[in-house]
């Protein structure tokens, strides 16, 4: 099935159903919510099967290393990681769960996630994360069993950059969650988690004014800091088919920017998927 390029705003995203092959994990046993909450910026509450939460995991200096969707399932908590590889923090969760008989298992061979356009949505026997993407046109459909769709990393990257999704460029421990569209998931009330001390200091002394933006430009600009008349724009991903992501100062407003004759189109990513 082909998508309407205009609907996505990118000529490179030509696959309607795009499978995401990044790892997934099942947390089983008692206390899974507590174990995940202990390292997440936000508390994961116990919820009925089929509900969806989101965790954000940071390193001790408060920079983001993963922001998995959390699917509450009869079997336990299913984590849809955004990192390329199975993340190291699973070992610390496994350590906690093992004391109560719980386990941490790879679910990649059982769970698949597919990005689809909302209008073609068929819930079927699956769980759906609705209205993702910079225009809210997409969903993530999670189901058991592989579907044999395209799962090329390149296709996913094109999709993510055009629609406001996070890639490994965002999650290498270089950026605060507030800088990459995850501010709504930082809750200091969750107590002590890796990086909480940094987040608390920033919150009280120097609130973050930077934000994640999508930049569209038909000139391939390398990853670097651009100084415009209005402020600074730091390109943090490569350009893929005219799109890249950047971290913008508050002075940089959405819209068209003329940077030394190069036109950039800037759009805020309010909540990165």
């Amino acid at each position: 099935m082909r998508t309407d390029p205009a609907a996505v705003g990118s000529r490179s995203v030509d696959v309607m159903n795009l499978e995401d092959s990044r790892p997934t994990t099942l947390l089983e046993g008692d206390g899974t919510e507590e174990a995940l909450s202990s390292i997440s910026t936000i508390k994961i509450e116990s919820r009925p099967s089929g509900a969806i939460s989101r965790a954000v995991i940071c390193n001790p200096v408060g920079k983001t290393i993963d922001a998995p969707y959390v699917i509450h399932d009869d079997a336990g908590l299913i984590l849809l990681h955004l990192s390329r590889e199975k993340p190291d923090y699973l070992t610390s969760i496994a350590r906690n769960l093992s004391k109560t008989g719980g386990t941490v298992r790879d679910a990649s061979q059982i769970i698949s996630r597919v990005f689809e356009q909302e209008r073609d949505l068929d819930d079927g026997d699956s769980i759906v994360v609705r209205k993702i993407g910079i225009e809210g046109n997409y969903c993530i459909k999670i189901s058991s069993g592989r579907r044999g769709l395209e799962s090329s990393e390149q296709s996913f990257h094109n999709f993510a950059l055009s629609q406001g999704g996070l890639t490994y460029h965002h999650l290498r421990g270089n950026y605060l969650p507030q800088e990459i569209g995850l501010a709504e998931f930082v809750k200091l009330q969750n107590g002590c988690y890796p990086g909480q001390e940094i987040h608390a200091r920033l919150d009280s002394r120097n609130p973050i004014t930077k934000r994640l933006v999508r930049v569209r430009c038909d000139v391939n600009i390398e990853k670097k800091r651009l100084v415009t008349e209005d402020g600074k724009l730091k390109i943090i991903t490569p350009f893929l088919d005219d799109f890249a992501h950047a971290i913008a100062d508050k002075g940089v407003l959405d819209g068209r920017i003329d940077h030394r004759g190069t036109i950039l189109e800037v759009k805020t990513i309010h909540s990165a998927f």
Partner: protein
Amino acid sequence: MGLIGGSGLGLPMAVEVEIVKVEIDVTDAAKLAIEKSMSEDGDGSVLVISAESGGCSGYLYDMKIVDKPDEEGYQSISVGERTIMIHDRDSDLLNGIVLDYKDTLMGGGFQISNPNADRSCGCGQSFG
């Protein structure tokens, strides 16, 4: 019905943690403090030291006086008349620690120095 479940559905690769034989040092001050803390507890009580995920640096120390656990998987270390127990799952993180006690008003109490920690929080209770 959940996404995962049903008969005959197996999940591959559980995450495992390394298990090592634990050796710890307990200073004289800490031995006295343990005796004092456990003076009203029976012989069946033990001090369990564990590492929980969380804290500013990734892990948190936890110390509890409990009845000797029945379950398998704990290693015992004798300290005078008392016993310290550490779960196998925490053995790689807690092997080699030095348990001390500081009798000061500010920041006093049991202190753990951990050679496995790359970093630690200012409060002394979190490490990573």
